[in-house]
């Protein structure tokens, strides 16, 4: 219950409310304040007429200015596209090697390719392009199909073992479990492992080298350095796509896994693929 009374000191009536003995004088507002208040009301009414405001059943009033934040975004995106136009045209006209050699173009392509990578590639290759078992690390200098910018572009465009692309990179290691004996598999695995590190049973190395010479050199080469024609990996280095060590090697000899990468040219178009190629090439392992 509020009770108004006249304040003794100021002679002004109170609002009638009381908080712990404190009462508020009912002073009138300054005129400029009241005028400003009315202006804000008028402004609000004008605003709801000019801009989208009043909710209707399925949408809202459009406002006489026809403003829409979606149009704003559309215009901003169009402006951004237009600003990129110069670079995009240059990327279309040049080869990836030429793009990688031009400072400004490379910077643009690395940024654009990095963004495209985050959307399309990280699912298999990881957000840092670090790969995982079965999915190659793109930062290192081991390349199954070649690490020049043009070779990377070719791989991204047509994919690897991607059945619906005629130009896809194709190779298949036979399942040696059906061809050679289990003992031979152990021997050849020990031999291959010995090329890049110590093995448990050194006596297996020599027979293993014989098995290798009979069965593997056609693709992996007589020095086991691999062959990019067939995507045959270098077996002497420290990089192992399907795991290092004799057990992992034996498993791969017995029944090899064959990774598949889709062809991206149809989905992303040539410009994006070039940008991606430049980006991957710039990660540190490019040749």
């Amino acid at each position: 219950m509020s009770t108004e009374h006249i304040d003794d000191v100021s002679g002004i009536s109170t609002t009638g409310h009381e908080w712990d003995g404190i009462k508020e004088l009912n002073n009138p507002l300054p005129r400029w304040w009241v005028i400003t208040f009315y202006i804000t009301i008028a402004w609000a009414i004008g605003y709801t007429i000019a801009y989208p405001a009043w909710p209707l059943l399925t949408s809202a009033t459009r406002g006489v200015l026809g403003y829409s934040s979606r149009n704003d975004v559309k215009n901003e995106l169009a402006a951004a596209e237009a600003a990129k136009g110069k670079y995009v045209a240059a990327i279309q006209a040049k080869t990836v090697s030429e793009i990688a050699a031009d400072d400004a173009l490379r910077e643009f392509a690395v940024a654009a390719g990095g963004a495209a990578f985050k959307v399309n590639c990280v699912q298999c290759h990881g957000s840092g392009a670090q790969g995982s078992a079965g999915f190659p690390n793109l930062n290192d200098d081991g390349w199954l199909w070649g690490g020049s910018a043009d070779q990377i572009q070719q791989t991204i465009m047509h994919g690897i073992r991607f059945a619906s692309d005629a130009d896809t990179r194709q190779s298949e290691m036979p399942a040696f479990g059906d061809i050679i004996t289990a003992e031979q598999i152990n021997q050849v695995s020990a031999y291959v492992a010995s090329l890049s590190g110590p093995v448990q049973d050194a006596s297996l190395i020599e027979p293993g080298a014989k098995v290798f010479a009979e069965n593997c050199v056609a693709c992996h080469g007589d020095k086991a350095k691999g062959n990019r024609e067939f995507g045959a990996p270098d077996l002497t280095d420290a990089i192992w796509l399907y795991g290092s060590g004799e057990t992992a090697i034996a498993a791969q000899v017995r029944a090899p896994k064959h990774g598949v990468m889709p062809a991206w040219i149809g989905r992303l178009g040539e410009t994006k693929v070039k940008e991606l190629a430049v980006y991957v090439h710039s990660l540190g392992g490019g040749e």
Partner: protein
Amino acid sequence: MLDQTQVERLNAEAVNSAKIRQPLYAPRRKIFPKRASGRFRQFKWLVMAITLGIYYLTPWLRWDRGPFAPDQAVLLDLANRRFYFFFIEVWPQEFYYVAGLLMMAGIGLFLVTSTVGRAWCGYTCPQTVWVDLFLVVERAIEGDRNARMKLDAGPWTARKLVLRVSKHAIWLVIAVATGGAWIFYFADAPTLIGEVFRGTAAPVAFATIAVLTATTYTFGGLMREQVCTYMCPWPRIQAAMLDENSLTVTYNDWRGEPRSRHAKKVQAAGQPVGDCVDCNACVAVCPMGIDIRDGQQLECITCALCIDACDGVMDKLGRERGLISYATLSDYNANMAVATAGGSSPVNPSLVRTDEGKFSDKLAHFHIRKIFRLRTFVYLGAWSAVGLALLYSLLTRDRLEVNVLHDRNPQFVTLSDGSIRNGYTVKLLNMIPEPRTIVVTMQGLHGAEMSVVGIDLPADRSFAVPVEPDRLKTLKVFVRQPANQVESAAQTFKFRVEDKASFETDEYTATFNAPEIAR
């Protein structure tokens, strides 16, 4: 039939009767400050000339920084994120200087307020200065207080219309010039002024001019003292900083009361009479429209014009100046005690004077000593400490810096020969407006070599790179260490940068990560 006195009188009242109706708003009571003259007015003219001069002229000062930086002495280059102040150039990451300056401003305000009260309000606040300027225009066109009051009360004649229109026109010109001067702090002033007059300047420049023109005109011309009374938080804050030894504009009622317009008559009747002749000169000159004789109040900005007005009257009457004066509360209370015989009687001005009519020796006077007290020393100490810290950091700051971001994804890469590679984003900051060649060297990390994307250098432990004036250069650096040299999973090493010409150097200690098995 009832007699009319028998009709019952009901106790009822209309809900909107004038007695209980509240006004919706309080209209402004117009104030027509009279022109004051005296030493404080002189001082205020001087302060006005200096502050307005600083505001309008600063952007036009030139300062040669060579061909790679603007030659404007004070420039807030928002587009390039640089702030230039004469010989100082501030980058965004050095913005803590502004925080330091704000601290100094805050503590300086404590210091000033605790010694000389609301001096900021009365002399240097832009609101005070511009209102003063607008009043000069008003007086020049419409005349002094009486003429203005007469004009305001009079009917709308052609003369009134001409005077009013020309007054507002000049106010608007000042307002446009004020808003216009602001934008010159943010771009090259001589270029911008041409663009403004040709209409080719950026829309934000015109919008800024429009907004500041509106605020200057409204606050300086139309709202004036209402800004201080209603809108500004300063009076409330500053009042809390005053103490009993702060100088404030004070009406010395210990010698002024009882005031009288007919002193001789009152004296003849044997009544005590004070120095105040109730001429209201102090009220007439007050730009806030208050009566200082009511005591210290929130509205008082301590502009001291009432002191000038009262001193003028006292001079004419042949009495001592200082009926209204800068005084401290402690002095005032001491003198009040003398005048009231320790509070036992009403003010009797004869108690503060000797028989010869001179002031009594018992009166307290302000002494400069009062400024030097613990509180002001603490403020001064804090203020100087911040200032010296800023100065030290300014004089010793780096103009060549290196920042390094270690790639975290992946943290390391195993290469085909088993060696380990880490990637780093190295940022070289050339913070002077001259091109420089920076030598980047690796220190530590046995057997490691660097390679840089886009720079063809033989893999090495040092390389030189040109950096544009006043710019940051970002490099992608790969560091590679042979497997047999890796000592631990996380080794530290240094990127050291050097400008061979000026011998400036900077270092960054980075980490090199390797897998545990590489050991």
